[in-house]
């Protein structure tokens, strides 16, 4: 029983991490209709900035704020300088450019910060809570991760559903011409979308790194799982991203914990889950009505 609880809790925490990353993908998809493959490298870059600050003696929280701000800046600059020139062309162009960015940013990190493995500190403890006689696989750090992701999701829901700026961002993403005719400053909205997505990505990068090891490519496997989680949830819905991440985290943890040699089957299992969900609900679990899709 304790084993089941521990495997479940491990899965929930991992799932929240996937959710965090999926949220960033959803955000950029909702606000620009681009799938951003560079998201992982961008998050890794800001995580290394935070690590450099921590190693220079700054507190975790200062580093967190600086990382989020540099994410904001990085997202805006990339949109203006790299994405804007290809935005008018075929949709695929921008996606391919983000793939190129993915590799380029990783290389830049290796040049600036080196490619060594380093541990990344956490603001809270890594020892599990004591329940009765047993310690369970839920740590103060996992609580911080879960709380941070849920708060971010709530903020995003509020932004898109209840604010004018959120509405304007969605409008710019869906129909640039119409939005422009209605007086929305589309260019600014797209920049804002990239910047906000990069902030959420930076947060995800920091949450993922805490209590783990970082190196320039540490986000690689998470990019895949983050995409699976986002697509599971429907790519369009912040709540879907969270649910998708949790489902994936739990399922992979059960596969790893209960299937013989399960640790090797985790990647295959992720693909199977994705296939099954897309066969049953092609738009993902939380897809909005198909009529709205362009």
């Amino acid at each position, binding site marked *: 029983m*304790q084993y089941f609880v521990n495997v479940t809790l*491990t899965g929930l925490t991992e799932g929240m991490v996937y959710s965090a990353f999926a949220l960033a993908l959803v955000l950029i998809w909702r606000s620009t209709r681009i799938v951003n493959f560079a998201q992982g490298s961008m998050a890794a870059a800001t995580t290394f900035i935070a690590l450099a600050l921590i190693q220079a003696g700054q507190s975790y929280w200062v580093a967190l704020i600086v990382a989020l701000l540099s994410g904001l800046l990085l997202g805006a600059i990339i949109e203006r300088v790299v994405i804007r020139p290809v935005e008018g062309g075929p949709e695929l162009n921008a996606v391919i450019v983000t793939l190129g960015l993915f590799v380029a940013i990783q290389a830049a990190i290796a040049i600036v910060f080196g490619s060594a493995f380093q541990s990344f500190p956490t603001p809270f403890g890594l020892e599990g809570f004591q329940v009765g006689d047993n310690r369970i696989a839920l740590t103060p750090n996992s609580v911080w991760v879960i709380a941070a992701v849920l708060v971010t999701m709530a903020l995003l829901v509020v932004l898109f559903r209840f604010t004018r700026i959120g509405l304007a961002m969605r409008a710019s993403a869906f129909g640039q011409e119409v939005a422009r005719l209605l007086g929305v400053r589309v260019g600014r909205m797209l920049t804002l979308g990239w910047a906000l997505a990069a902030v959420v990505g930076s947060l995800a990068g920091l949450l993922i790194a805490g209590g783990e*090891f970082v190196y320039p490519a540490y986000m690689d496997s998470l990019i895949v799982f983050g995409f699976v989680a986002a697509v599971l949830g429907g790519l369009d819905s912040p709540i879907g991203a969270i649910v998708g991440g949790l489902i994936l985290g739990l399922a992979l943890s059960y596969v790893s914990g209960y299937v013989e040699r399960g640790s090797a089957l985790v990647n295959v299992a992720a693909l199977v889950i994705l296939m099954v969900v897309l066969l049953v609900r092609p738009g993902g679990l939380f897809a909005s009505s198909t009529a709205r899709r362009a």
Partner: protein
Amino acid sequence: MTAIAAATAASTLAACGGSDDGGGDGGGGGGGDASANEASDIGITEDSIKLGAHFPLTGVAAPGYSEIPTGADAYFDCLNEAGGVNGRTIDYIYRDDAYNPTTTSQVVNQLVLEDEVFAIVGGLGTPTHSAVLDFLNSEGVPDLFVSSGSLLWGADPETNPYTFGWQTDYESEGKIIGEYIAENFPDAKVGLFLQDDDFGEDGEAGIRQYIDDQIVAAERYTPGNTNVGPQIAALQAAGADFVVGFNVPSYTALSQLTALQLGYDPQWFYSNVGSDPTLVGNLLNNFSQGTVSDASLLDGALTTDYLPTVDEPDNPWVQEFQRIWDECGGDGELTNYRIYGMAQAYTTVQALQAAGQNPTRDDLIEAIEIAGGDWEGPVLAPFRYSEESHMGTAGMSISRITGDTTEQVEPVQLTDIGDAPIEDFDGEPAEVPENGIPNEESVMD
């Protein structure tokens, strides 16, 4: 990708740059006469021998392992300054394969076909080196002293006549660990934490020969999947109070972190590969700022040794390697990985000396088969080299990690693969020759 390419270029430059200094004059080492030198085979000129290697300088396996070639490079630099081998300097080129077998094929191709090395020395990793095993043997390139304890390199010299192992193989290591547990912890419930490949399988096969009935769980992790929560939780659930890990260093750190999280505190025994206390300590270093109060999580863990280690400052080999590192090394401290690289370079020089004044590639192989079993050096127990076996050293001691040092709990044991018995090794530790350079007679001239 770009990062890998850049790192390759940098390391190659460093390697080439390092080997340019040091004169080729004077007949050091084997005491040969440079004037009698000929360009006897590919990679050998009158005054140089070109050797190649592949190591993970970037990526998952880089921590620790990337230091091995820097140790070898320092050793060869000092050797070159002292006159080289038979008046020839060693030109040592190592390239980054990022522990990716596809890349290994690529860089070894480059070493053999473009750089035209005489031999490959110390190529690291089971999955990586497997990818070039056939190529090197079909090309007839000596493939010396693979940095891995797989049985693949030495158990079948008929199929792979050009390949030699070097370190203690994982099966023999498993046997020595198993016997130690059976004798000293007969009531322990043993759990195994295994890398899901040859490394874990060979180790498990060895250990099960002695304590099959004591093993309550065997959990496997896949390198790359950093979530080992389910595996550690399973060991805990099975009631294991003694865990033996056949895993790489980053997974030692991960298993310690996960055990901390679960409040799981068994007696740990990490096989030689995963146990370097300095490296694991560095990996866990940032966590200790505030959250993990004690950085020496490995305190009290058991491990095995087949080489002297940096925490034995009184060992004459360690003192000599320290001198070499200070005089010819680069940045950073002498580490166990650098000692590994130097010790491997030492064996390489023994092989080159035994192969005679003007060796061919086949001479080198024959010389190791004839003389290699008698070589002494920093390695604690003798090699098994002969026409029938290309296996490396066969012995290990067992020690306990206490803080930053280790304390021997069992002297060197000697065994072999299969059902060979385990015996006490009764030989004396070898003495350090002048300048740390071996002095083997040629067996070929």
